[in-house]
Every structure is written in C-alpha cells, then in structure tokens.
C-alpha cells in the first residue's frame, strides 16, 4: 500500500513539476532548446517511474508506531529551531542545547546528556572554528572560549611561521595578542 501511495504522490509531483517548469518566463534571447524542455523531460520520466512503482509495489515496509514518528517529528522541530536561533544565540549555546536534546532522546540519562551535549559543542567549535578557521555564528559564550583557545593557536601559528622562514619568533606571542584582543 505504501508504494501505491508513494507512486501516486510521485505522479502528482511530476505533474506539479511540469506545471512549475512551464511557468518559467523565457527571455527574449533563447537557445534552440530553451529552459523548459529538459525539466519537462524529467517530469515525464518521473511520472512514468512513479506509475510503475504504484502499479507494481514492493513488499510493505515496516512503519514505526506513532510514538516513534512523533519522536522523529520532534527531533526535526528541534533542528529547525536550531537553524533559526543559531545566528542569534551563537554557535556554542545553540549547538550544546540541540546536542543535549538529541543525546537525551537517543537514550542517555539526563545528566549525562547535558555533559555530552556541552562537550560536543565545545569540541566541534574548536575543530571547525579554531583549527579549520570557518566563521561560525558568534554568541555571548564564544569570546570566553576564544581566550582559552587563542594562546594554543598562537603557539601553532608560531610553528607554521617556522615553515614560512621569516624567523619571526618574537612576533608570535604578539600575534596571539592581536587576534585575541582584535574585535
């Protein structure tokens, strides 16, 4: 039955897709094929394969009970909230909270979840932000973490400088200060 519903949904999707593709406003100058042809071809094959799925269904998959579905839905909601509040709350707080929730729901005791969640956020922050240098959302806590992390980085920076070969040994600590106190 699932496959029949799925196939039916696929056919509807294909129809909708073809309709949406045909809404494309063509510009004055176009090529011989135009921007609509390929999407329409896709929609046709999508519709055909969906029809086949509906007509020749596979054995029924095992769907989880409603409680489990709710669990998945709740996790998705938490993730959506995470995505929304990440830019405001800053990386560490948002990530720690989200990781705590997921750890808890996957079966860890509450206290353990809190510790694991916080550690997860901290370790990821150090790897991505400090080691790989990606810019992550900044929040109230991040500055404190940086003051701890920075001296270590300064030392590593000095290590790199040895490769660079301009022999700025005494410049390294200053550089750390510069990045730490920057903005």
């Amino acid at each position, binding site marked *: 039955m699932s*496959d029949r519903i799925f196939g039916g949904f696929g056919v509807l999707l294909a129809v909708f*897709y073809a309709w949406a593709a045909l809404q494309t406003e063509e510009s004055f100058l176009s090529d011989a094929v135009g921007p609509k042809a390929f999407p329409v071809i896709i929609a046709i*094959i999508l519709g055909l394969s969906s029809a*086949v799925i509906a007509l020749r269904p596979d054995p029924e998959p095992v769907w989880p009970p409603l409680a489990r579905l709710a669990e*998945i839905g709740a996790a998705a909601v938490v*993730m959506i909230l995470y995505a929304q509040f990440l830019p405001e709350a800053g990386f560490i707080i948002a990530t720690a909270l989200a990781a705590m929730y*997921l750890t808890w729901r*996957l079966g860890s005791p509450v206290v353990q979840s809190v510790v694991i969640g916080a550690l997860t956020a901290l370790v990821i922050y150090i790897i991505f932000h400090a080691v790989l240098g990606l810019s992550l959302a900044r929040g109230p806590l991040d500055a404190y973490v940086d003051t701890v992390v920075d001296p270590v980085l300064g030392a590593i920076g000095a290590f790199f400088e040895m490769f660079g070969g301009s022999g700025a040994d005494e410049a390294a600590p200053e550089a750390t200060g510069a990045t730490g106190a920057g903005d």
Partner: protein
Amino acid sequence: MDLWANLYGGFEIALTWQNLGLALLGCFLGTIMGALPGLGPSNGVAILIPLAFTLGLDATSSLILLTAVYYGAMYGGRISSILLNIPGDEPAMMTCLDGYPMARKGMAGEALALSGIASFVGAFLATWGLILLAPQLVKLALLFGPAEYFALFALAFATLGGVSSTNQAKSAFAAMLGLGLAMIGVDTQTGVPRLTFGEVHLYDGLDFLVAIVGLFALSEVFVFLEHRHGSADAEESKVKVGRIVPPMPMVIKTIPTMLRTSFLGFVAGVLPGAGASLGSFISYSMEKKLVDKEGTFGTGDPRGVAAPEAGNNAAAGGALVPMLALGVPGSGTTAVLLAVLLSLNITPGPLLFQNNPDVVWGLIAALFIGNLMLLAMNIPMVGLFTRVLLIPPRILMPVVAMVSFVGIYGISGSSFDLLVMIAFGLAGWILRKLDVPLVPVILGTLLGNTMENNLRRAVTIDNGNWWTLVDSPLAITLWAIAIAGFILPVFVGKVVKARMQRRDEEGSLSD
C-alpha cells in the same frame, strides 16, 4: 632520458624540509576535512588558500600544500562512508554501498585498510598517467563535444538500474528527483530563474553538499531515533572492528579490480565536466557488471570497496590533466586550484609544461610524496578510526548531526541552507523506508546542470536538430553502452531479482 631528469628535478624541488612539512600538514588537514561530512576537497582547498598566501609560499610550495589537502580529502572521505554509512564527501558516496556492510559484518578494519591501499593504487597510477599521457589525453578531452558529454551522462544514469536498488523504477524515480532538484535556480544558459517560486535563496540552486549531508547524515540520525530501543544500541552487542591489516588473499583478489577501476576513474577524471564523483560511480557500476557473478556487491564485497576508492583517487589525479594542460577545471576542486595558480601569476594552458617546468614537475613529485605519506598515515591510523564504532550511537549520532550542521553553516553562513538540509534529512528517511536508493538522487543533483547544458549546447549548435546527439561514432558508442547497460538488467533481471530478494531477507543495508 628527459622524463627521469625532469622527475629528478621535481623531487629536488619538492624534497625540502619546508615542502615535506607542508605536504604532511596538508595530508593531515585534508584527511580530517574529507572525513567530516559537509567539508569536501573543494572547500577544504579553498579554506587553506589564505594560509598558503599568508605564509608567503611560492607557487610550487602552495601547490604542494593544496594538492596534499586535495589528495588527503579524497582519502578521508571513505572513513565516514565505511564507519557511519555517511559519505564524507561526494566521491566517497559509492564506498558506502559495500564499505558499510563490511563494517557491519565486523570487518571495518579490513575495509578501511583495503580502501586505503586502493586509494593509493588509484592515485599512484593516475600520477604516472599524468606524467606519461598528459599531452595525448588532452586530445581525448577534445573528442568530447557537448553531444558526447550528454551521452556520457546518459550512460551514467542508464547503468544506475540495479546498482543501488533492486527496483529499476525506484532508481529511475530517484535519479529524476535529483535531476529535477538540480534544475532549481537561475538557468545558466539564458539567465531566467526556474522553479524558484520567487525565493531569492533558491536563485543559485541547491548546493549538492546540502543534499548529500541531509540525505545521508541527517536521515541516519532519524533512523536511529526510530530504532532507539531496537538493535541500534551498540552498547549491548559487542562491536567487532576487524583486523587492522587486511589478509593478503583479500588484497590479491582485489588487485585486478583496482587496476581496472584506476584506469576508468582516470579517464573519467581527465574529461572536464565528468569529475571524481562520476569516476567512482562508473568504476563501481562497471566493476559490478563485470565481476559480480554471485550478486555479492552491496553486501560487503571487498571488491566493491576497492573499486570506487581506486576509481575516485585516480579521477582526482586525472582531473589535474585538463587543469594543467588546458586551463579547464574538471571538478570543483581543480577550479579552486586553478584560481590559486592564476593568482600566483601562472597561467595553465598548453604551454605550462614548457614555460613552468619547475611548477609542473615539483607538483608531480609532490603528488608522489603526498600519496606515500597518506598511505603511511592511513594504515596505522585504521585502528584509531575504528574506535569510532565503539562510541555508542546515542552519543555518536548527535555529534554527527551537529557536525553536519556546522559543516554546512560554516561554508555558506546561511540558515536557509540548514532548513533545506533538514528537509532533505526527512525526505531521506522516508525514501529509505520505501527502499528508494539515495545515490541516484545525489548523482542527479551533482550532474543535472552540466547534463542539461550540454544537451542544449549540442542541439543549439546543430540548429535545433536533436539527432545531433547520435551523430558521432563516439556518441553512438556511448549510447550503445548506455542502452546495453539499461536493457541487460531487465533481461537477466529475474535471476538477479530472486537473488537480491534473498539478500534483502538477510537484512541488507544497501544504503
């Protein structure tokens, strides 16, 4: 001989303490970035460009650092594929198909070590290919006009059936879903927005990294949530991680596979616009068609691990050919490398080998060195990697989820991308439930735009005549293989299907 003198000169350039240090650093950072979902070779290289500039490195040293990252990421991608069933980057997608089942069978150590060796073989042979064949291979790239590229992509999709699913209709559905998603955004040919519903965030289309991380990593988290009290709790069941060194017979048995797929992957890499993902994909599906007589591919066959890894690492080497010799990047990563070369005042092109031999041969020597380092680094670290499996999923899965979010957010800085990723995660969970393979979805999003553009270029060049698609011997050959690849499984489908059914009952985890 000229070659040896050049190579010797290259090693003289590359074998300084500074360059060796840079290669080591690059290999290490690259492996990490490759293994983390969301960060792949192309953004890995891009992230480290400032480092190369600020260290004031000359052209050769910069290239050594950045290609070490590139090769490192190609190695690293397989780690999370095998251990977590989550591809660390897009070329490692195919490694999930047999790597993860191997890990489930308690052979994670063997799978990691074997794939490390396969990666080495692929990259090593590709580097020789680069040295010996670059000028001739450029001519191969010139045989491929838009019509031939379109046929090549059609071939990739036609051979999909049976590779990742037992149900051809579902494979086709997944492929079309991926292609359909790729169409979203501003049409690169005419500049009009398509299927964006006025949403500005969609103008640039969906990033395939968002798709891949959502479909694979997040859906894995949802699967664990679903089975919280089920078999997923690894704490009770004793995890076997397998041996750190693969048994000799297993290595020997996979050698022919590695050689064949290195060749295929290399050729796919040389063609600009095909790239490493197509290399690993074609390697896997061709190898399966060729040697999978017992239907063990997809259930943890060592050859199914060796094939894509040799293929994608060879493709990474192959992709350097058009970049150096034509100035045309064959993949996202080589596009970034090309930018680096340009900003160092080196113009890749037909004359690069004559004008800047030190850069070319230094780079080639660096590839050999980096590759050896990666092998030396990866085999002993297999034991360390497999420890990941000992972490219970209730801790590991939230980490995976958060790493996925950070990987995507750190690159794009966009909450919208995160929402799209969650949607992909939920869709991935439903598709897995319905036994719809995810690999074709990714392949579709990855190749969709190039495929469409080549179709439109070909037809436009021939003034609207669609028959131009089958107008050259090469195109006809590719179509013939594509059709054979599509039809054959239908004919022998009955036999295979019965076998697959048995496999499914044993509780396979194809993806």
